[in-house]
């Protein structure tokens, strides 16, 4: 029962906030709701007993990404953003597509109606650590390269043009 309450509240939080993210006009609000939605997802992780994931979600997503988004929005926001429609004119077609996809996916999900969790969730932090430094060491290291590349890109794009660089147009 507890599980159900937790699930439905968290799921509701995630879904409603997500809807707010994609429908609201004010981008700042959107970003805030994104944080909420991500937090809802973190709650779901908690319900699932994925403790490390729960923590990471809070740390990385809610604490990192969502905040970054809010910063970005604030940085680049304009007055008009608050009043302009934030949805383009294809929303109806998009809605249709989404409905179809949702129908397909939910139909697929129905197949799992019968499966229930076996046993209590085991703490996952330790096995995750083993995995990351064991079998998954290569992707783990590779992710560092991904982050390096992203960093390089971020530096490159956000750096102010300082010197008139040679040869550039």
């Amino acid at each position, binding site marked *: 029962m507890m599980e159900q309450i937790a699930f439905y509240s968290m799921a509701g939080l995630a*879904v409603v906030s997500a809807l707010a*993210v*994609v429908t609201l006009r004010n981008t700042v609000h959107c970003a805030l709701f994104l944080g909420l939605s991500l937090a809802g997802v973190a709650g779901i992780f908690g319900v699932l*007993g994925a403790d490390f994931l729960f923590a990471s979600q809070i740390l990385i997503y809610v604490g990192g990404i969502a905040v970054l988004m809010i910063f970005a929005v604030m940085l680049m926001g304009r007055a008009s953003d608050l009043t302009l429609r934030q949805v383009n004119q294809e929303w109806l077609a998009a809605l249709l597509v*989404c409905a179809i996809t949702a129908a397909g996916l939910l139909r697929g999900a129905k197949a799992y*109606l019968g499966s229930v*969790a076996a046993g209590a969730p085991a703490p996952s932090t330790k*096995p995750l650590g083993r995995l990351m430094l064991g079998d998954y060491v290569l992707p783990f290291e590779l992710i560092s390269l991904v982050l390096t590349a992203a960093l390089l890109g*971020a530096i490159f794009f956000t750096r102010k043009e300082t010197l008139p660089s040679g040869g550039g147009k």
Partner: protein
Amino acid sequence: MTLAHYIALGAVLFVIGIFGALTRRSVIGILMSIELMFNAANINLAAFNRYLHPEGVAGQAFALFIMTVAAAEVVVGLALVLAIYRNWDKTYMENINLLKG
């Protein structure tokens, strides 16, 4: 709670993400929607791991990777948007329209 509930939740989030990605007019809005999609995947992974394949933590590990990758993408994306904003003060997708076929 059955697995179906989680999968359905993932599906709904995913679809909302798609909807947002398809309809938001600002780049940041699109980025946010995409984050929702990533999260949907993560829910799936965690749920599957818990319900169907509880013997390991591969699903959760994957979710971690996805999280990191998403973070990296957000970083690059925001930097890019910032650069463009600085250059021309444009964050709306449809305004970026220089290239023609």
